[in-house]
């Protein structure tokens, strides 16, 4: 209990509590401490005037300095936008063939493309860009390209889409259905031959003949495919719609062909460029066989 007394050695009163014989002195506060305290009060008044302080119903009072954390954020954001704008400007100016030479810009493009991919492309191609064999959405990570895997080809596909009505330049080709063209034995022989192209079965004369007559024009005599018309390669390990006999038969009789929307008009050219860079970067991107003829001419298009 409170049992105040003066501590003789120091002449100071104790606070009157005792713990195991230890008493606490009520040492007087230095006077400057008091002034410091008053100073903080003055500071707080200034602060309340200068900065938002009193909570109101939907927001706090606006200080004289008009400062707000949202305002700071907006400032940061616009600074970031500005920085992005310069990157976009550079990307707009550079022809896509020259992009790989600018590794810094390429990195920015890939990063931007990854973001755009997540918004526009994952619905079909999947978040890892691995596509879907069941639904026939191509895998974009591998080295098998229907319409070409260099930056320019990818960009072209993105701009014009695949089998899009209303675009004269869209990637276009049709595989005729062979329903009723062959009897069962012929069909089996053909399937055997197709599988033999990648070493999965024994070839036979009948199949080879049917293939040469009906398929080689587009898929090539050895099954090498033709990118000009999007005819898939038949002699590799990748089968967009399955490599089982049934799958192949079904594809011969009632071919299914993929479609892809054209992004021209929906996305701006820079975003498309970034998407092309991203898809190209996924691991299967191809180099240009030869650098496009006169890229400088395009540089001048957008000064």
């Amino acid at each position, binding site marked *: 209990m409170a049992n105040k007394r*003066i501590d*003789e*050695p*120091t*002449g100071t*009163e104790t606070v009157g509590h005792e713990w195991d014989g230890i008493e606490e002195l*009520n*040492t*007087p*506060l*230095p*006077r*400057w*401490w*008091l002034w410091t305290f008053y100073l903080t009060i003055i500071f707080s008044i200034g602060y309340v005037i200068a900065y938002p302080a009193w909570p109101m119903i939907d927001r706090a009072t606006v200080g004289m300095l008009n400062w707000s954390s949202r305002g700071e954020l907006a400032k940061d954001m616009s600074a970031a936008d500005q920085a992005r704008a310069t990157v976009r400007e550079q990307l707009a100016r550079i022809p896509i063939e020259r992009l790989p030479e600018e590794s810094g810009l390429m990195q920015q493009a890939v990063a931007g493309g990854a973001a755009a991919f997540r918004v526009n492309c994952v619905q079909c191609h*999947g*978040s*890892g*860009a*691995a596509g879907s064999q069941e639904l026939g959405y191509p*895998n974009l*990570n*591998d*080295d*098998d390209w229907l319409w070409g895997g260099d930056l320019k080809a990818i960009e072209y596909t993105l701009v014009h889409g695949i089998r899009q009505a209303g675009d004269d330049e869209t990637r276009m080709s049709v595989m005729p259905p062979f329903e009723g063209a062959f009897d069962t034995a012929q069909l089996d022989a053909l399937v055997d031959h197709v599988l033999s192209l*990648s070493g999965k079965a024994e070839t036979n004369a009948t199949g080879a003949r049917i293939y040469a007559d009906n398929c080689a024009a587009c898929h090539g005599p050895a099954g090498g495919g033709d990118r000009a018309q999007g005819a898939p*390669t038949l002699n*590799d*390990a*990748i089968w967009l719609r399955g490599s089982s006999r049934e799958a192949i038969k079904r594809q011969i009789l009632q071919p299914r062909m993929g479609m892809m929307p054209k992004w021209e008009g929906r996305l701006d050219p820079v975003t498309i460029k970034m998407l092309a860079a991203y898809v190209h*970067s996924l*691991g299967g991107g191809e*180099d240009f066989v030869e650098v496009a003829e006169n890229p400088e001419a395009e540089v001048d298009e957008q000064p």
Partner: protein
Amino acid sequence: MNNPNERKPGDDRDWSVVVEDGVAKTNEPVSSAVAEPEAATRRHEPHEPARTHLPEKLYEKRAVVHNKRIDGPFRRFKWLVMVVTLAIYYITPWIRWDRGPYAPDQAVLVDLANRRFYMFGIEIWPHEFYFVAGLLIMAGIGLFLITSAVGRAWCGYACPQTVWTDLFQHIDRLFDGDRNARHRLDKAPWTFGKILRRGSKWTVYLFIGLITGGAWILYFADAPTLLRDFFAGEAAPVAYGTVAVLTLTTVTLGGFMREQVCVYMCPWPRIQTAMMDEQSLLVTYKDWRGEPRGSIKKAQKNPGAFGDCIDCQQCVQVCPTGIDIREGPQIGCITCALCIDACDRVMKDIGRPRGLIDYATLEDCEREAAGGEPKSPWRTLFRPRTLVYLMIWGGIGGAMLFALGVRSHTDLTVAPDRNPPFMLLSDGSVRNAYTLKLRNMESRPRDMEIAIEGLPGAVMWTENVNRRDAAPTQTVNVPADLVRQVRAYVAVPAGTPSQEFSFRVTSLDEQRESDVVQTRFDAPESE
């Protein structure tokens, strides 16, 4: 804010005699050691007037401290420490240290922007911050060690607050004269001469504050460049802000607050009082020798009735915190030992042995008071407690040095792609992709070889190496002092099952440092 006078009317207790635990004690100056040599715990009695009419105070007015000039061995030591510590502080940022073309050449640099900490030959990355933590722990234990051995020696000599206060007190002396002149000037009216003096003194205060704050920021950027930028007005706003704040704190804390910081603000005296024991060396007034006090004249009249203390107040006048050590150990005493210098000088003048005030342990005091011999200072310093502290301190230091010496400057981390986990290639082989991070902690670019171990038939290429050039190993160049990220594509022939394997990175220089990380290769289930 008034201080209420607690003394109530009718309170007629006789405060000149206090009864405690049934023992009547007087407030007259007396040493219990003289009266009862064995009563060690009650030795330090106050030398204060009787407290019959001491009012209770709510607020304490500050008593100005103007300490008198003194010379002596401890003062000289204090000068030395002051010169050394200030020199370390102001000069360190200007020391250059060649680290080659890829790293800054400042010997001590906290490079916040690039997250590097340089200290002479040592470079610390953020993930090695435990070294800094270790240093802080060492500093802490070092203080324990010092405190348990020689009391508050840190406070007395090396604490920045002490060093700068000392510096400012010398400035005072230079401008306003010694103790008495300063007291007089304080009381003098504000004449033109006083204004001039104060003005020039405070300008010097400000200048000291400015170079103190200025030197601080030089530790965080290249000193010559920053100094140029600073005066050209091109340095970062935070640099100016830091200098302004530090100038202000230096001038207030060193120029005006001084001992108030030690008495009221600093936690260290509170901690230290708990760390000292009977065997710690403290600045002590040997009251059994000094009490009762009496002037030389009185002593001549009454030989044998008085102690050695002639009550000349020299020890009080030289004290930078303005306390009277004769009242016993107290929180205001920073053990700067200036009172020892002062008292020794007086004792020499009057022909009495030195050491009335001296560094002594409580144990020794008791022994001496009882007529025994004091312990040798070495025995006092090297006792189990200080030795244990020393061993812990040295152990941490040694362990850190060892860890620094053997740490590898090459490091690898591997993150396998999980979506998709594997990729079938057109020739039937299976590819996995990994993100590798190669850390080069040397301040020169290095070629590093990435190799695949334990995955038969595997080849690798990267985002910059074409698949045509795929090989079991790839060499990449990692820039000086940076982490380089590499996308690694690993392909194995068809039919290889899923399995564990490792990446090994080896630096292609004479050190040939290497690091191995195990990871997983995923492949389709074989039909």
